[in-house]
């Protein structure tokens, strides 16, 4: 975690109201998929909180990163208007990353809308490691669908839209059963309701597929919840979004309910094994 300025190199509107910006930030290129940066808006904006963004892609060769965001308020509006050369203070990389089991060869990624920003870096990492990646993308309508030109060629990219204007007609979660048997692990980011549906689907997967767990699993004991090993063993990992204050674990503002008590999205997350989250809080 470091606190340094990053210079905006270029920014463009890739979808209506959604921007992709490239920053010169060599200190952030060590980040892994799922981690995020906490970006400061300048003093004169009157905004008192930083804005957390997933690291969309990193390029170690050029020392640049990209962030992908939608304009939802004053902070993102200011960010969208900023020009090349603008220097922003970025705190990061923060949070815990997605953990891919070394034995997993087939990765299924599910993104709902802007949730693509949360799993985009995992696409690059998985392909660099020689894994097969299928990305299921859900959006409200065709106009909001993430452009396939921004994805590597090796990805199988499947789209679902709520109004049926492109690809599958219906929620993206309906596509998951088709890939359930193929995928070694599933990684998802998007609206909470979507993640909850995935978690319920994942819970019944072993029974549906007839997966039997015989004897002791490789690696011995069941790993302690919350650890990287526990996430690596999970079939479904989700990256959560939450309003944040400090993003380093001090303010307890971004807490969500976990099965073992409150968990901080900024510190214990943003990536959780599906089993660590209380999807139906009492």
């Amino acid at each position, binding site marked *: 975690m470091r*606190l340094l300025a990053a210079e905006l190199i270029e920014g463009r509107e890739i979808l209506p109201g959604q921007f992709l910006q490239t920053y010169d930030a060599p200190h952030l290129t060590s980040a892994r998929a799922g981690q995020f940066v906490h970006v400061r808006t300048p003093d004169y904006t009157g905004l008192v*909180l930083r804005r957390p963004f997933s690291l969309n892609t990193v390029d170690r060769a050029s020392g640049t990163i990209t962030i992908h965001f939608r304009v939802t308020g004053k902070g993102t509006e200011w960010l969208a208007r900023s020009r090349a050369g603008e220097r922003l203070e970025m705190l990061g990389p923060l949070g815990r990353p997605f953990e891919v089991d070394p034995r997993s060869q087939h990765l299924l990624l599910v993104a709902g809308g802007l949730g693509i920003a949360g799993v985009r870096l995992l696409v690059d990492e998985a392909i660099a490691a020689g894994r097969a990646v299928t990305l299921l993308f859900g959006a409200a309508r065709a106009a909001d669908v993430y452009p396939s030109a921004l994805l590597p060629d090796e990805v199988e990219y499947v789209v679902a839209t709520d109004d049926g204007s492109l690809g599958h007609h219906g929620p993206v979660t309906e596509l998951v059963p088709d890939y359930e048997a193929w995928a070694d692990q599933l990684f998802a980011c998007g609206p909470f309701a979507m993640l909850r549906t995935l978690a319920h689907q994942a819970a019944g997967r072993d029974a549906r597929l007839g997966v039997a767990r015989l004897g002791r699993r490789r690696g011995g004991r069941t790993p302690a919840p919350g650890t990287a090993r526990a996430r690596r063993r999970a079939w479904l990992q989700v990256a959560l979004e939450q*309003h944040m204050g*400090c993003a380093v674990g001090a*303010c307890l503002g971004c807490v969500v*309910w976990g099965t073992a008590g*409150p968990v901080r999205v900024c510190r214990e997350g943003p990536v959780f094994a599906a089993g660590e989250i209380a999807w139906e809080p009492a």
Partner: protein
Amino acid sequence: MKTKRRVVTAVTRRRDYPGPRPRKSAIVGPPKTAPARRPAASAAGPGRDPIPAVDGVRAAAVDLSVDLAPGRPGTLVLRNPVLVASGTFGYGIEYGEVVDVEALGAICCKGTTLKPRAGNPPPRVTETPAGMLNSIGLQNPGVDGVVERYAPLWAGWQVPVIVNVAGESIEEYVAVVRRLDGVPGIAGIELNISCPNVGKGGIQFAVDPEGAGSVTAAVRRVTDLPLMVKLSPNVADVRVIARAIEEAGADAISAINTLSGIAIDRPNRRPFLGNVYGGLSGPAIKPVALRVVYEVAQAVRIPVVGIGGIASLEDALEFLYAGAAAVQVGTAIFADPTVPLRIIEGLRAFCAAAGVPAARELVGLALPGGRRRTPPSVQGVEYRP
């Protein structure tokens, strides 16, 4: 019960500083020589706001130290008057990688209760115009958790850690403070009688002078630790409550806690925060905080610690002028964790440029009667945990 000693060290005579003021108590300095010439810049007098021209030697000679418990000499002498506010700095370790915590005046840790608390349902924070609302709901591991997990760490730090204590009843406050008393690493208590975010967060103690006085007195009876009480602005007359707290034996008063507010989630047509109500903090509440500090500083003789929207040297100076002996930085840390350190350096440079030998001489300049509240010198007294 741990007793704390006033440690008297030799005062190094500095070129521009006339030396400690003679006191009746036993500060032993080097033999008194003719007072050194005051820097020429002092002719301009404090109180103006010139842009500090940093003079290395002079800046290093500025005395920023402040005693937050003058009634118990030497127990809570801070190296500088900038603290971090409870709830915004966790337990001092979270920002460790980007902030040098040892340079702070003191750390007020997250509100601590007798039993562990899970806190309020999410979402818990949201930004508002020039501020933010939070309703964390006193999530904390309980006093035993704090003592076991963090106190050993704090004991190795030079920076004093003040534990913020919350409770639902006088018995609970007393039980928590009893547990904290005498634990190495705990330099003081900040009594949070003003959390607006839990049904019984002690707010009932902050709104009437009898309640405030009785909880302060009850805690006072069980500890010798320096005791600071945090006021709520959500009351009719804060001066009456401040006086009751002073009479009950508090060593200092911090003001203010957050203001109660709500935010509405427009698309979903319901309150945004999981707890509906939240506490407003940030620059939006600065004028309210200044008013409370200004009033309380005139009502009591114990030091007042100003909190509320402090994000720069200018803000900190305003609080000092309004009568605060020290300030706590809170919400501003979220935007820039280095703010407290920059205020400390800025204050040093400001004093040097203004020819003020000690920051405490700035305290209360804006009060009627001017410098009436200048606290006694603590030159030569060092904090020893």
